[in-house]
């Protein structure tokens, strides 16, 4: 399972970077979406794809029995998803407003502030 995930994540990263390098601001946002999903999947995969029980400790014991799924990356990835979603919502709104104000979706037309 892990090699398959690794390839999928790699493709996601590559596609995301490719999309971000285009000049269109819509493609920029799509790139950002793919990029954050790639990072989330990567965190999810790093703990190993164990087919285990939930990490519950039976009564009277000090550690769980048998193979368990690592709970920490799941907690981490949940937080990361929430953050990524919030930031993406912001950037979608930003791109919309920028399009309304600049009246162009070409990044090359947004160079007024560059020096």
């Amino acid at each position, binding site marked *: 399972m892990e090699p398959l995930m690794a390839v999928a994540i790699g493709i996601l990263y590559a596609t995301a970077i490719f999309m*971000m390098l285009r000049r269109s*601001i819509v493609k*920029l946002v799509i790139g*950002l979406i793919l*990029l*954050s999903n*790639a*990072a*989330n999947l*990567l*965190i999810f995969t*790093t*703990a190993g794809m164990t087919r285990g029980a939930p990490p519950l400790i039976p009564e009277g014991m000090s550690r769980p029995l048998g193979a368990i799924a*690592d709970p*920490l*990356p799941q907690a*981490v990835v949940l*937080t*990361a998803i929430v*953050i990524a979603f*919030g*930031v993406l919502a*912001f*950037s979608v709104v*930003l*791109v919309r*407003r*920028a399009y309304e*104000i*600049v009246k162009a979706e070409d*990044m090359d037309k*947004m*160079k*007024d*502030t*560059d*020096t």
Partner: protein
Amino acid sequence: MNPEVALPILVPLFSGAVSLLFWRSRPMQRFIAVTGNLALLIVSLWLFVSTHQLGYITLQMGDWPAPFGITLVADMLSAVMILLTAIIGLSMGIYSLATTAQGHEKFGYYPLLHLMLAGVAGAFLTGDIFNLYVWFEVMLVASFALLILGGERAQMEGAIKYVTMNLLASVIFLTAIGLLYGMVGTLNMADIALRLDMAEHQGMVEVLAVMFMVAFGIKAAAFPLFFWLPASYHTPPVAVSALFAGLLTKVGVYALFRVFTLMFDQSMGYLQDIMLWGAALTMVTGVLGAAAQYEFRRILSFHIVSQIGYMLLGLALYTPLAIAGGVLAIAHNIVVKTNLFLISGITHRLQGTHQLKKMGGLYRERPWLAVAFFISAFSLAGFPPLSGFFAKFVLVRAGIEAGAYAVTAVALAVGLMTLYSMVKVWNEVFWKTLPEDNCILQEPAPAGDDGRLVKPSLWLMYLPVVVLALGSVLIGIFAEPVMRVMETIGEQLMNPTDYIRAVLGENADGGISLLEAEVQEGSGP
């Protein structure tokens, strides 16, 4: 229990929440902006004093022992950074009263300000690498919203670059955290530091170190990843620019200091040359960019970049003295750079433009403003006895001791170039006579609640400027006690064992023996 560790985060969060409650009441929001930031300054002083006495203060969230729960930890570096954050926060609170347009206040300017301060404080205090990411995002989301308040064309263009680059940096950071967790199976920075030393694949550790360096390098605007900064920092309202200039890039620098002295201290030798030349090129490109500009805030934005180089130089030389100098450069720069941006706001209010060519005659008109600018600008260029001189002096001495003559020479030359562009600003804004084509106060000054002009409240803008200029002088006059604090920081950062022991407590030894047991069983985390 050490509540003072959590208070610098909780106080701005609380004042932000309260000012959200008073969404419709502008006077109340303004009142909370000042009192809340005053409270933040008080708790920061408390934290500073008790950190100074105890060395390290830790607080385990939810009472979970260290490697499992989230740890808040304050050492001298965190305490100093928090104290500076609070000072800048309070100055901004006061300055914003006079400068913020009514429309911005209605769109939640003050709650965002509090939230951003909470994010910055959280990033300085956390001892958990994923938590650092979370606080970075808290800070960034607030800064995104502050950056586009008002929604002018330049702001939108600047914001797209700022948002994209920062999100990219965050994703690189997050990826590195994921890979790090896959290697060592822990997120606590002290615990990571223990386990990375014994990691099997040292090559992978170096890859991770580079990923962290790139991620924080983007956020800190180091060469060659700085170009988003001069494109966006001069677009928002002046108070926001000043806050960004003072604090945000320094959070990236702080993260570099923390990560490379604590977690990757083994792979530092490998990366030292990259960082050293990165620092030198940051200084040179920043100052050359500034020399080419004729817009007040763009010059200042490029100077942020060049000053970041000095801080990185402190980290790259990697001796206790150099680290002390680097941190002193951060402290000095937070005070001085914020002040220069605030002064640019006052000159804009007085003359209605940021273009140097159209300004002039302010020395005759406002001599005390000229003095405040003179102090800040010459402090930035490194004149004795101002704060910048000591930062540079310590760095240069550390550079010579470390034998990095070329980079030290670059640092000295960049000081001269800084002086050149500051003299340019001085000549254009304060010295020459006001040119014909300047129309003073073309746009009417923002009206207050009762329709009166806010012009009489100019003293609210002067107050933080004078205090910060005085701060720069005081750092210079009391250089010895300040330097003693910085030397403590240098010692603490170069000896991460104490930090690890302070965070993990008795688990530090347990962690090591547990790790050895795991290695013997042949089942790594």
